[in-house]
């Protein structure tokens, strides 16, 4: 019954679209021969396409409605309440990530490293967008700051990777605060536009300030990370970088998880939920916003350093708006504020395109379609965040807390 109704509605939509697009899609005037070409097949195509799209959207909308009534299936709460299954899963993941570079080729290890880097980027942006609710479209700028700090520090002063890592992170944090100041008063779309501009400004500076950044030709021969001063072979170095990335991911998860369950993390969420009420509760909006920008940028800066070390060559073309968009999509797809969700989304986003090269031409199309579908079907992301519960009189003895770092983030 319902289905027939939906078909009827979709049919009407299709008719309406055919009518609307009739002048452009069907009539074609040939001024040379003073002829009118009637392209009826276009009409049919528009009709069929709009019918199916409308029908799909309707079904998706219906599904979403019924899904909203059901308790969220994929919150992983079940898993975290079942310690044995949880620890086994964790052990398998840990083992797999440890042996990964030894069972897969250098090429695949390198792709996995990239994926891990996007995990960190996603988690970092998640602080700004997911927790604090500040839509930042220029996140890639901090990534660039990190990469160029390592490249330039190494070029001019010969600083190594491990020294540059914290410096790059701190410089990025400083840039985060620098960007934060002018946009303190902005929200939503306005904030998005200004941060977008900021990202482009950084890229354009890098592209045009030749004396400083060597312009579009970039900086080459950046050394790979060294292991206690030993220079590794290319293959060994790939594995080494993989483990550095893995370590950074664990570090990031640890820190972000603790942050979001803290006084500061709660203040970020409050800021996202209602700015005025947040201030009325005694939260210093300025400080908390700047803290979010700085904390988010820190991770981007760190990954930037790692990126420069991994590729040994950087130029401004690596830091386009597209990167920001991908990182943002990871956050949105994963579920704003959910760590596990962001990790899964980052892995999907980087690994799928690599392994589905056959569809490379349709990459952006699929990308868009997936985003639209997600927004309709599961706007809270792959894994919705479950709010933490607290027990009176025993925060530290709280079961979820005792299970260690990873349980809390589920």
């Amino acid at each position: 019954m319902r289905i027939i109704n939906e078909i009827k509605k979709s049919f009407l939509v299709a008719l309406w679209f055919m009518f609307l697009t009739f002048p452009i899609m069907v009539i074609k005037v040939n001024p040379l021969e003073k002829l009118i070409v009637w392209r009826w097949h276009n009409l049919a195509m528009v009709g069929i396409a709009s019918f199916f799209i409308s029908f799909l959207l309707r079904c998706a909308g219906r599904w979403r409605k019924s899904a909203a009534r059901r308790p969220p299936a994929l919150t992983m709460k079940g898993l975290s309440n079942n310690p044995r299954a949880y620890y086994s899963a964790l052990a398998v993941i840990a083992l797999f990530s440890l042996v990964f570079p030894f069972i897969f080729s250098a090429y695949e290890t390198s792709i996995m490293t990239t994926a891990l880097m996007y995990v960190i980027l996603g988690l970092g942006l998640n602080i700004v967008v997911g927790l604090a609710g500040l839509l930042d479209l220029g996140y890639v700028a901090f990534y660039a700051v990190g990469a160029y700090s390592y490249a330039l520090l190494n070029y001019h002063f010969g600083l190594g990777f491990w020294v540059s890592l914290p410096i790059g992170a701190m410089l990025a944090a400083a840039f985060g605060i620098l960007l934060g100041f002018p946009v303190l008063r902005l929200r939503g779309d306005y904030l998005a536009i200004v941060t977008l501009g900021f990202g482009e400004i950084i890229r354009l500076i890098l592209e045009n300030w030749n004396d400083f950044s060597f312009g579009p030709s970039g900086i080459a021969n950046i050394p790979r990370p060294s292991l206690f001063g030993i220079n590794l072979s290319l293959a060994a170095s790939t594995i080494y970088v993989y483990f550095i990335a893995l370590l950074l991911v664990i570090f990031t998860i640890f820190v972000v998880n603790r942050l979001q369950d803290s006084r500061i993390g709660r203040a970020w969420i409050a800021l996202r939920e209602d700015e005025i009420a947040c201030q009325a509760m005694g939260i210093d909006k300025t400080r908390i916003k700047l803290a979010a920008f700085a904390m988010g940028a820190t991770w981007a800066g760190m990954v930037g350093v790692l990126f420069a070390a991994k590729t040994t060559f950087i130029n401004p073309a690596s830091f386009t708006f597209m990167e920001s968009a991908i990182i943002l999509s990871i956050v949105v797809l994963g579920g704003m504020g959910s760590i596990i969700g962001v990790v899964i989304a980052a892995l999907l986003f980087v690994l799928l395109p690599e392994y589905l090269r056959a569809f490379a031409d349709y990459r952006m199309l699929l990308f868009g379609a997936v985003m639209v579908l997600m927004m309709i079907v599961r706007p809270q992301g792959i894994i919705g965040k479950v709010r933490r519960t607290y027990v009176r009189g025993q925060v530290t003895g709280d079961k979820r807390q005792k299970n260690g770092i990873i349980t809390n983030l589920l």
Partner: protein
Amino acid sequence: MTAILKVTGLSMNFGGLRALDDVDLRVEPREIVALIGPNGAGKTTFFNCLTGIYPPVSGTIFMRASSGKQSRLNGLPPNKITAKGMARTFQNIRLFPEMTVLENVMIGCHCRTSAGILGAVFRPRAVRAEEQRIVDSSYKILTRLGLTDVVNDLARNLPYGAQRRLEIARALATEPALLLLDEPAAGMNPRETAELNQLIGKIRDIYEVAILLIEHDMKLVMSLSDRIYVMEYGRRIAVGTPVEVKKNPAVIKAYLGE
């Protein structure tokens, strides 16, 4: 001077509209004062000026902290004013909908606690103890406001009356000396309103706060208030005890027309 809040000559404009015109108001410690007036009289605007959301065009706001120190609130940002001991609720409920009830109250503790980013990451004993204090004191407030059963529910899933109480709970968590309530009974049924009536009295006694209350429910206002201020078109038209205000011809005119 003993008054906990002393406002003199407060004025506020919205474009050409004079929303507040030279309003004076005092609140003594542990006093319940009502602010009433017809719709659009400027009551909420008055609250917004007190709490730093709007900057008043003129006038002074002084508040006496529990330490006895008097401080001027004009020009301070909202969070500083809350830190000085003024907390408020909103007429159109402004909870943090995606946070749990408990977390909403925990946010209120923000300005009385201090853990920063490093504290969050390293979680030293002091920070853990502070977190515990936040949880415990939030629980306590929620118990007193009868919200124990829903501590772990999302704020947006609460029924309307409970949301209003949660707003009060959240404000209490900031450890105020003066509590501003903007139409706490709006949207409540008579039974809930009667309960609220008792609750507000209880809050005043337990937390030893002064309460400034905007309310349209006259029964509530008359039974609770020590003094009542009446506003119309941004001006204060009367002030006095409930009995005095009820008899005041200007008030009767404002409410009943000519």
